[in-house]
């Protein structure tokens, strides 16, 4: 179960109603269900790395823009700025944490039918026709 702080970080990563084409946010795409199954079934190294990445997003990323953690204290623009600083940080391990955060979010978001349709990905039955 995700804490409200973790949810704030993930919501800032892929927000709802923030883009004219990709209108759905991460939680609209079913991340709660995805995360529950991820915690049950993902390989331990993936699970623990994602947990560490979430921790960095909540507690470390604000420090990178000179703000106090947790990330949930910040406004929307600063949350994005903080996460942006994490994924582009010069120190490789922090940058990797940012990459893992994005990769796991993308596992869920990229499988979302509505988001796939929005970028023109064909539905399975289209191919069979």
């Amino acid at each position, binding site marked *: 179960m995700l804490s409200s702080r973790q949810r704030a970080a993930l919501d800032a990563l*892929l927000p709802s109603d923030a883009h004219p084409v990709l209108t759905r946010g991460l939680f609209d795409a079913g991340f709660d269900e995805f995360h529950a199954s991820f915690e049950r079934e993902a*390989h331990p190294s993936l699970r623990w790395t994602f947990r560490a990445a979430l921790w960095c997003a909540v507690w470390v990323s604000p420090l990178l823009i000179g703000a106090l953690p947790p990330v949930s204290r910040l406004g929307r623009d600063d*949350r994005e700025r903080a996460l942006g600083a994490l994924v582009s940080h010069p120190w*490789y391990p922090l940058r990797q944490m940012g*990459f893992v955060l994005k990769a796991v979010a993308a*596992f869920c978001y990229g499988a979302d039918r509505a988001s796939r349709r929005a970028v023109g*990905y064909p539905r399975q039955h289209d191919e069979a026709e």
Partner: protein
Amino acid sequence: MRELFDGEKERRRLDDGFDYVIVGSGAAGATAARVLADTGASIAVVEEGPVVEPAGFGDAVFPAMKRMFRAQGAQAARGRAFIPVVQGSCLGGSTVINSAIVWRIPDDVYEPWKTEYGLGDAIPLAALHRHWDLIERELSVAPTPPDAWGRSNELMDAGKTKLGVAASPTRRNVAACKGSGRCLTGCPHGAKQSMLLTYLPYAMARGARVVAAAKAERVVMKGDRAVAVEGRFLEPLSKRPIAPFRLEARKAVIVAASAIQTPGLLARSGVRSPHLGEHFQAHPGAPMTGVFDSPVTMWRGATQGYDADEHRRDWRVKIETISLPPEMIFARMPGVGRRWLETMSEAGHLVVWAAQMRAYARGSVRERFFGTDIAYDLEPRDMDNLRRGLRFAAEMMFAAGAREVITGIHGMPERLKSPDECRLLEQAPADPRHYSMIMSHLFGTARMSVRPRDGVVGTDFAVHGTRNLFVVDSSVFPTNLGVNPQHAIMGAAMHAALGLSGRL
């Protein structure tokens, strides 16, 4: 079905005996089974991964990775950078999840095996060509036809024409490819001629028994003879043990578990050699992403239907088209939040072409208490070649009409806006941590040698000092290839199996 013992479903102990026990059901193991099945011998093929049904192949990446990829895709090499090492772990091995690319071993790669590594005619090239002819007939190998190209492959063709470089439709083992771009998660149409659909059923139809969800823990040796394979059935996701198995081998044990798994199995079986797990080589790769004004929809067309080998010899780099599913495209797009959504929304206008490199680097593979440890670090000359290769890929993209190229390299401009800016890629950071790389095609960890002091396996594919413990996968290759290795592996495994059954 008597021919399949699925440990995940059976959930009981298995004790049985066969002429040959083959560990691994991928390109090498299935080919050995296909050859030996023709002799009338009794065969068991042991596969650590689960049985996968083509009818159940979906188009979502993570469920596929959970079921079919080693460590769910989380296996990585450890060096300055962590580089994911992609391997299939299911019945049929990596042939189920690869892009079905077929290359014979180039002469310039083979020649040093004969001379520099002293293998002479241990695996004669003429014999390999005969094996490849047969395999290509049986697996419907042909260049990707234009009607299966899709826009991404068409664009590489356009770039090649504009630049006048060596590139061509990729030869693949596919029958009637529908161009759904879903090789990575298993072909939903049964078009890819993976071992799951070809050589394993061939062997099973001739009485071979496939034992799945079964991790081979050790080969039981009696003096210099391999007499059995012991292990445990495992829950595919949790890897919790279900029940033990022991398969007696009357004639031979054939190890075809991959360059990552084979050295560990041999070490657990008492094989001792300073070369075991050493000399590890691979083909790391990094992508360039081209942005086009008109839609590309890379998901329509063969996953990897075109490649450019212009610089295979001089820079040791081959450029390949690749169709990635949305999950993997999204993960690689720059930005977070609104910016990430904006870059993701371009997905339908992108091509991803990867520079696959025949790296000089050598690493090692070791069993540790936490699992398999792959130590591997690229050399400066590898990074030089990678940067040249990425520049070449970007130039081809602009030649094909790209508006921009997304570099994906930390410390570089996010986007190149003109062909002139491609030269910046040769000044890109030389540190592998700045790149988003992936590694597949794994070699050398039980290399072949004439003398025991130079390698692990003899020129008859038997482990030095043993009479009937054979290794037939790419562990035995003395070097990497610079081309996709499935075909090379199958040719070598066929040669080994014909030899050990006395039919060469």
